[in-house]
């Protein structure tokens, strides 16, 4: 459905020039298949955020190659011209805090992305409702974000990340503000959604509770990733 997930080869990122240059990423290789949820773990300053920003097409890598689904989005000096449209159509984001738009109700928060892509309002809302139903928050469809619990807000944020059926979702500490039970619920949902929509999901986390749930984990340290098998507990 969504091609080949995401593939990164030899990705490097250097900030600054000359003596002040800092190599935040020194050679990252990753591959996440459609329907797979992988963890990205590393201490502060290891290059996690830089990698996430490169993956999210927010900053340009210095060298390397990135393929999203069937589309090469970065290949050394070459890059996709319209990064804004790329982020809108090909990448879903789930943040540490839900960051829902406070003046839009739940349905429109989710429907906003397809609307931005030019889909008609009614059709966008239908897509949003389908996802809200899948995430079991359809009963709060007309509520404002401030009226939702933390867990509900995070599920709506996941729905927003999924609504354009992107080949990849980047989840930045999605369970950080949640207790164990809700954190596990969010991970369960991400796994279900990954399978259902054949989406590759990369979860950046420090959360010890959820690390054992990943089947594959990328450790990042000093700008270099190391892949290892996870325990994959609970989501077979």
């Amino acid at each position: 459905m969504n091609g080949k997930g995401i593939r990164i080869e030899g990705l490097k990122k250097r900030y600054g020039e000359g003596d002040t240059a800092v190599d935040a990423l020194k050679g990252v290789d990753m591959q996440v298949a459609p329907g797979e949820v992988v963890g990205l773990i590393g201490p502060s300053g290891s290059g996690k955020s830089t990698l996430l920003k490169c993956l999210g097409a927010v900053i340009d890598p210095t060298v390397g190659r990135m393929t999203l689904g069937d589309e090469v989005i970065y290949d050394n000096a070459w890059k996709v011209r319209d990064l804004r449209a790329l982020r809108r159509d090909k990448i879903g984001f789930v943040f540490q805090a839900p960051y829902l738009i406070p003046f839009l109700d739940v349905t429109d928060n989710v429907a906003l992305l397809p609307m931005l892509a030019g889909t008609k309002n009614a059709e966008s809302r239908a897509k949003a409702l389908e996802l809200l139903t899948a995430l079991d928050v359809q009963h709060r469809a007309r509520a404002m974000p401030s009226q939702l619990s933390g867990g509900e807000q995070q599920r709506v944020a996941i729905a927003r990340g999924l609504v354009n059926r992107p080949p990849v979702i980047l989840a930045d500490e999605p369970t950080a503000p949640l207790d164990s039970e809700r954190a596990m619920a969010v991970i369960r949902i991400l796994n279900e959604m990954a399978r259902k929509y054949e989406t590759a999901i990369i979860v950046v986390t420090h959360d010890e509770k959820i690390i054992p749930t990943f089947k594959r984990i990328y450790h990042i340290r000093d700008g270099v990733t190391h892949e290892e098998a996870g325990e994959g507990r609970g989501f077979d």
Partner: protein
Amino acid sequence: MISLAGRDILHAWGKFVFTGIGLGLLIGVTLVMAGVYRGMVDDGKALLDNSGADLWVVQKDTLGPYAESSSLNDDVYRSILAMPGVAQAANVTYLTMQVRKGARDVRTMVVGIAPGKLGVTPGWPPFLVAGRQLTRSHYEAVADIATGFKLGDRITIRRNHYTVVGLARRMVSSSGDPMVFIPLKDAQEAQFLKDNDAIWQSRRRSEANPAFNRPGVPGLLEAVIASQSTNAFVNAVLVTLKPGHAPEEVAESIRRWKRLTVYTRTQMEGILVGKLIATSAKQIGMFLVILAIVSAAIVAFIIYSLTMDKIREIAVLKLIGTRNRTIAAMIMQQALALGVIGFVVGKITATFSAPMFPKYVLLMPVDSITGFFAVLLICILASLVAIRMALKVDPAEAIGG
């Protein structure tokens, strides 16, 4: 696509409405200031309209009788009447003073009008809302309704008492003071009337002056004293023209043969608007500029604050692929909505408060329309700061770390 600006306004409607009311009061003051200027111009035109004159004959080389003092002998009108094209000529005096009624006094322009007939003799109030015109040659007055006087009131001008026999409307001076019409002779006396002590001192000086009190010239001193206590001057002669005569031609004829200064209606309007109220107009203009700047600063500050409150949401919007122009449109639409709310509140405020001002405030539709577009322009300009800031927001800010 849904309206992000509309949704945000509905979400925080209280903030918008109260800010709009605050801005509206400022816009209301601005509209009233424009109305004050229009009122001054209209007062000037009303003064000219109500005089019923086609020409104003005044002292040579003066801008009288409204912008400068002017003094003419009160028999000049006879020779002007004989000029070709002149239908009527009548003396008139103008004196701005406090007119007392009991314990209170009112600032007025006292107008001395020559005896004659309504509609024929220039200078008379053209219509009354109550009572009658002056019919006696002394101690009757017709007052503008803005003085607060009523029919039958006894008012005091200098040492004399007058009975209000008629009430007029919109009879005002160029500075908006309501007029009180009295007979010409009384007005001439009022202009030069001194107190008893001053008269006694003047007589004593004349008696002591050997030039006026010569032995062997009987009657000289009495004649001098009599001339000192009477006033044979007026401020202007108002002239109406016979049909078919051009004002400028008749004016030129009077200038040439009588060696006096004569103004046509157009010239007099130019003096009133261009000279008499020019400084006030500049003052009001300055206020309008300041108010516009203050309004712009308020809108800019409010929109900037509202945008600052949404920085994280704007970063998220940019990250998820919202176009810059969508974000800019959201901010600009909010600024325009604030301006529209402000203008509606301002217009209502100005409309209801204008009659309460002591001076005439004339709210003209063209000023409201200009004001509306000026407010929109100010709002657009004021939103540019916030838009610039929003467009500089890095979508990476939405991603932690």
